[in-house]
């Protein structure tokens, strides 16, 4: 188990490293940052000064090394725009996005797992069909459009919920729905398919042959095995959600990471963009790592290897 852990950790680390190279190159091969940084009115001397100030005159390898060394200490340099440490900028925004993602994921799981399981148990019924139709439809609705529609209906017309901001929990309702929406079909389908597979498996037949009550069969024997892949998917979805929060945060003017990223891209604030790419990638990798652990815990075949 420990070896399994360590190996997974090593892989995770090297993935993070590769992502860091990509994030770094992506933004540094794009052109002369110093010109951008110095601003439109800058003279060549000013540009040169900026270049030195931000270390942009160094070879790319050196710049990368310095940046990575900083990143390892959660020091991503200073924002070109805010001239403030990127880490502290991120620090303010991370909780918002994490909160949003967590609520959205919670919402999605809370809706999708029971519905998916029920659809599988009642396979072929009208409920199952409705659930599948909902899946197909759900995946077809663009997040941003859903967000706008939610605003029109629930915030502007009905005035039930606030439009934007993050002051109270009620502010998170609409964005979470918009963000969680896209994950519901995937989780639901996976739960349903997993349940179908499991329900058709020999050990469920064994459980039924023991005369166990249907709820024991479904909840103890079936769901436990059916959610194993859901755990991994949930982690992946959470990663996607953090990445996808860019759209939702833009729609709902939530000042989370996504919003910061979008603005930073627009402002060519590279240290911030880099840091966010890295951060999201790291969170994703961390999550899949945790999901692996959770899976190992849920599935003794991995745990007791």
């Amino acid at each position, binding site marked *: 188990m420990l*070896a*399994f852990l*360590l*190996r997974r950790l*090593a892989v995770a680390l090297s993935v993070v490293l590769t992502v860091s190279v990509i994030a770094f190159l992506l933004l540094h091969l794009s052109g002369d940052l110093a010109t951008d940084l110095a601003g439109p009115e800058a003279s060549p001397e000013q540009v040169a000064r900026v270049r030195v100030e931000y270390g942009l005159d160094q070879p790319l390898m050196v710049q990368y090394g310095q940046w990575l060394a900083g990143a390892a200490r959660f020091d991503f340099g200073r924002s070109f725009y805010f001239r403030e440490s990127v880490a502290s900028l991120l620090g303010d925004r991370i909780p918002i996005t994490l909160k949003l993602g967590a609520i959205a994921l919670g919402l999605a799981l809370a809706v999708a797992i029971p519905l998916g399981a029920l659809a599988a148990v009642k396979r072929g019924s009208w409920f199952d069909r409705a659930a599948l139709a909902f899946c197909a439809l759900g995946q077809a609705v663009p997040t941003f459009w859903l967000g706008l529609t939610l605003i029109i209906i629930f915030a502007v017309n009905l005035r039930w919920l606030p439009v934007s901001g993050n002051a109270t929990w009620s502010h998170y309702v609409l964005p979470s729905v918009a963000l969680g929406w896209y994950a519901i079909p995937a989780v639901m389908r996976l739960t349903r398919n997993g349940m179908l597979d499991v329900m058709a498996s020999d050990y469920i037949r064994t459980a039924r042959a023991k005369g166990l009550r249907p709820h024991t069969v479904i909840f103890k024997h079936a769901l436990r095995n059916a959610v194993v892949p859901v755990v991994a998917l949930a982690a992946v979805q959470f990663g996607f959600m953090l990445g996808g929060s860019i759209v939702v945060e833009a729609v709902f003017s939530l000042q989370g990471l996504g919003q910061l990223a979008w603005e930073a891209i627009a402002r060519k604030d590279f240290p911030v963009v880099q840091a966010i790419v890295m951060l999201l990638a790291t969170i994703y990798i961390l999550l899949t790592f945790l999901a692996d652990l959770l899976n190992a815990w849920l599935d003794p075949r991995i745990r007791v290897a």
Partner: protein
Amino acid sequence: MTVPVLELDNVTKIYPVPQGMFKPRAMLTAVGGVSLTVARGEVHALVGESGSGKSTLAKMLLGLTKPTAGEIRIDGVPIAQTDRREVARRIQPVFQDPYSSLNPRKSVADLIALPLVAHGIGTSASRQKKVAEMLDAVGLPRRMIDAYPGQMSGGQRQRVAIARALVMQPDVLICDEPTSALDVSVQAQILNLLMDLKREFKLTYFFISHNLAVVEHLADRVAVMYLGRIVEERGREALFTQASHPYSRALLDCVLTPDPSLGMPDTVIAGSFPNPIAPPPGCAFHPRCPRATDRCHAEAPGSLPVADGVAACHYAS
């Protein structure tokens, strides 16, 4: 003395099995030091428990995987020095599961013609003709030429697989449990067919099975494998009447003939197949052997000559 068509000389296959990052990879000896000779025109059967290395041996004979050590020779020429395609012309496989051994996306004609295509033999018309001939040979109606595997029964598929194996007119057919997925009535058909084809095409069979009744019916010589090693290698007659190795004997006891008067055999060996990564010391069979002694525990037996063959048991008499 003529050169045997197949010779295995101390063939060993070791698979490294990863066991985690910081543990060294374990070495699994799937096949350990197997030496065999198969004479032209004979049926050489290989029996043994699941996991004893039969398929691995077959794969090496087919050139699908390389032995870790030892040498395989066809007509005296080492396989390692032969072009793989040349090996393919001489040795062809028939697999156990006729469902997975045929590409479900291909029609019977394409399946049977594949070896010709792979070796660039003939035009499409001549291939077509050849396919038709092969269908006749394996007893399939010609109208099935456009059928897909999904439309055929298990027996029919196995016939297609055999036709494909024969289209290049090989010398040796490696049959890895060719009938164990089939019903008895179909099994009989396939066994009859194999025997007919052997005569017609002068084939040599390397026949893997765990059904000793089938082996007895078909084989000229029989090798019994246990945990990657040949524990006994005899002519059929000798093995079935006077098996020397306790494991062979146990296997024979377990042949359940449809005779209600016999009841269950009483001499059933204990235990189950040991872990191939950590095989028992000494004679690998000793933990299950009713006659094991301290010597068996300590010392691995070599091959002792017995009547019409060899046996690897200290007490083979």
